């Protein structure tokens, strides 16, 4: 076995790291536009799904989205759109974001024209536990928000509470709550917190 001097080792590893870092930057810059476009398509698909359009193909998502949705100016920086829902009514899309157990969670909530009733929702996450917290992306969970209201019967802003099935009381009206995901308490709380904070920013 050859003997390598310390100087050789230092120079060797430094050169290797510099070369690899250089190559990686080139690849990353070259592929960036395609990756960004994929993310745009995914976002459009998610919003369309929340607005009641089912099974929109990848190619159709962006054209349809730009046709029926328009960005909404708001005093806060929150991303919002007006959108024509699948049933023909106008809705408001609100981008919501917060944190789950392991990382970022986000989603889009579509409110009906009374700015109270939820017409649809869709959620995504970065790294929630598969089979537990990750289930917030499932249609079953998202659809449980449909028809719920963000104001209680006294007109007070309460957002949506996400509670265990058994805990329906505590002064929370049925229209203001959905069932949590069992085994995913922290992610469920995260969704609740995310909805409250994000919608609070834009409510009148």
């Amino acid at each position, binding site marked *: 076995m050859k003997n390598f001097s310390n100087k*050789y080792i230092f120079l060797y590893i430094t050169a290797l790291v510099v070369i690899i870092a250089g190559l990686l930057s080139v690849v990353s810059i070259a592929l960036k536009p395609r990756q960004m476009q994929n993310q745009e398509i995914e976002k459009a698909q998610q919003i369309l799904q929340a607005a009641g359009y089912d099974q929109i193909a990848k190619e159709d998502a962006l054209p349809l989205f730009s046709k029926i949705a328009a960005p909404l100016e708001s005093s806060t920086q929150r991303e919002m759109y007006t959108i024509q829902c699948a049933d023909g009514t106008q809705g408001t899309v609100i981008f919501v974001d917060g944190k789950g157990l392991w990382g970022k969670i986000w989603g889009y909530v579509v409110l009906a024209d009374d700015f109270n009733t939820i017409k649809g929702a869709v959620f995504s996450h970065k790294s929630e536990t598969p089979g537990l917290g990750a289930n917030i992306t499932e249609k079953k969970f998202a659809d449980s928000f449909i028809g719920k209201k963000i104001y209680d019967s006294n007109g007070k802003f309460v957002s949506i509470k996400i509670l265990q099935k058994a805990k329906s009381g505590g002064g929370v009206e049925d229209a203001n709550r959905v069932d949590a995901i069992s085994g995913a308490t922290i992610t469920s709380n995260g969704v609740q917190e995310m909805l409250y904070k994000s919608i609070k920013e834009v409510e009148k």
Partner: protein
Amino acid sequence: MKKYLGPLSKDNPILVQLLGICSALAVTAQLKPAVVMALSVTVVCAFSNFVISLIRNTIPPRIRIIVQLLIVSFLVIIVDQFLQAFVYDISKMLSVFVGLIITNCIIMGRLEAFALSHAPVPSFFDGIFNGLGYGLVLTVVAICRELLGSGTLWNYPIIPASFYEHGYMNNGLMILPPMALILVGVLIWMRNSKLKQVK
């Protein structure tokens, strides 16, 4: 040629050496991500073997693991970037497991056991066949799990709707990770009992 075929049967990385089990359990709920994962591992294994073998005489032995990790992570990041750019939905399904190819023991194992002591071209083929041996097991497990767990293959419905009307139900257990462990266990058992007969 024959000496390269070991990983496909008698030297299979998953069934015999029990390497790479973690990702084998995680990505086999459906066929499509399993195949993409297998291809990614094959590509990374082949090219990391090739590159390490190419520079094997210049690597100071004291830092060889660091150098290997650098090369492997370089290739894994490239694969990850390509998946994100061209098959975005699958890349989301594989999520963290693409990054974890870096720590896949099959790859480090082949670098240490083969690439450091063999010429580049044989090393390249060694990597390909080890990747394929890994992919073979992933494919078999994924076919069982997707067919019995979701009634589909490659997202196409296989089990006819009339079955469901007569009360057939998908086995939900198949989609959960423990079932992958049991299936891999069954495969190992089948392989071992066959090996005994040969002896």
